[in-house]
C-alpha cells in the first residue's frame, strides 16, 4: 500500500487537466483584457470616455510614472481618505478632501479652487474606490480636469517616496 499522502498518477494527471481546462476558460472569456494588458493598452477599470469639448463623465487614470511630471506642472493633489489617516501621512503637498465629508466641504472647496483647476485624486491604492467616487463627485460639481492616481498612497509609500504628516 502506497502512502496515503502520495497522489496516484491518475489524480495528478486529472489535476493538470483541471487546471488547463479552467485556465483556457478564463483566457477565452477574458482574452480582450489580457491582450490589452500585454500590448500595453490601457485596461481602465471603467469605460475610459475621452474628453469631448469641456464635457467629461469619468476621471482619467494616471500612472505612477506620469505623476511626477504632472505634479511638477503644478497639478493639485487631493487626498480622498479620512482626515485622521491624512494627518498621519500623505503625499507631499496634497490637500485633504475626504469623500465622506465632500458634500459639506464642497462649497468651501469650490470657492478656493476654480472649476478649471487640474487635479489628481488618490486614496488607498488599487481596490480603494474612494478616489474614483470623489472624482465623479467633483466632475458632477463642474470640475473638468479631474484625474485619479490608482496606485495611491500605498504605491507612493512602497516606492520609498517622501511623505508628509499633519492635520488638514
Amino acid at each position, binding site marked *: 500500500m502506497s502512502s496515503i499522502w502520495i497522489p496516484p498518477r491518475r489524480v495528478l494527471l486529472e489535476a493538470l487537466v483541471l487546471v488547463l481546462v479552467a485556465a483556457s476558460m478564463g483566457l477565452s472569456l477574458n482574452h480582450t483584457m489580457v491582450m490589452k494588458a*500585454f500590448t500595453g493598452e490601457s485596461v481602465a477599470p471603467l469605460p475610459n470616455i475621452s474628453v469631448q469639448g469641456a464635457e467629461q463623465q469619468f476621471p482619467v487614470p494616471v500612472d505612477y510614472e506620469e505623476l511626477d511630471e504632472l505634479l511638477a506642472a503644478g497639478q493639485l493633489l487631493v487626498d480622498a481618505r479620512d482626515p485622521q489617516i491624512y494627518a498621519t501621512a500623505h503625499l507631499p503637498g496634497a490637500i485633504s478632501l475626504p469623500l465622506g465629508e465632500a458634500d459639506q466641504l464642497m462649497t468651501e472647496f469650490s470657492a478656493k479652487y476654480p472649476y478649471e483647476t487640474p487635479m489628481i485624486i488618490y486614496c488607498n491604492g488599487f481596490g480603494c474606490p474612494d478616489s474614483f467616487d470623489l472624482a465623479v463627485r467633483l466632475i458632477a460639481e463642474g470640475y473638468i480636469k479631474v484625474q485619479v492616481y490608482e496606485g495611491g498612497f500605498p504605491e507612493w509609500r512602497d516606492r520609498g517616496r517622501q511623505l508628509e504628516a499633519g492635520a488638514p
Partner: protein
Amino acid sequence: MKQGLYHLCRLLLAGVFIYAGFLKGSDPVAFAGQVAAYQLLPYAFNYLVAAMLPFVELLCGILLLLNRRVRPALLVLFGLNSVFVLALFSVVLRGLDIDCGCFHPPGSEVTGTSPQMALLRDAGLMLAIFMAWFLRQQQAEEPLDG
C-alpha cells in the same frame, strides 16, 4: 462520523472557493489591481492571473460540490493555497499594507482582510484540504459504510 467530517470539509471548501472564484471572476480588472498590489508580477502578468485564477477556483469548487474528481480538485487547491500563503508571507515580510484580494468584493464598502488574518484563514483552509484528502484516500482504498 468519518463520512460526515469528509462531507463537511468538502462542502466548506466548495462554498469558499465558489464564492471567491465568483467574486473575482465577475470583475477581473479590479482583481488584477488587487494582484498588482502584491508587487510580485510584471504588469501584464497580473491580468493573466486575474483572467485565469477565478476559473480554477470555481471549477475546483464545483467539482467538490458535486463530489466528483475530488482528489484532483483538492490537489489543485493545495497548490493554489500554497502559493497564496507564500505570497502573503512575502507581503508581511515586506511590510506592505494591502487588502489580500481574497474575498473582498472590489468597490464595496466592506474593509478588506489584513495579510495576517488571511494567513490564518489559509491555515484553516489547508487543514480542511488535508482532512478531506486523507478521508477521501481512505474511502478510495476501502469504501466507508453508511
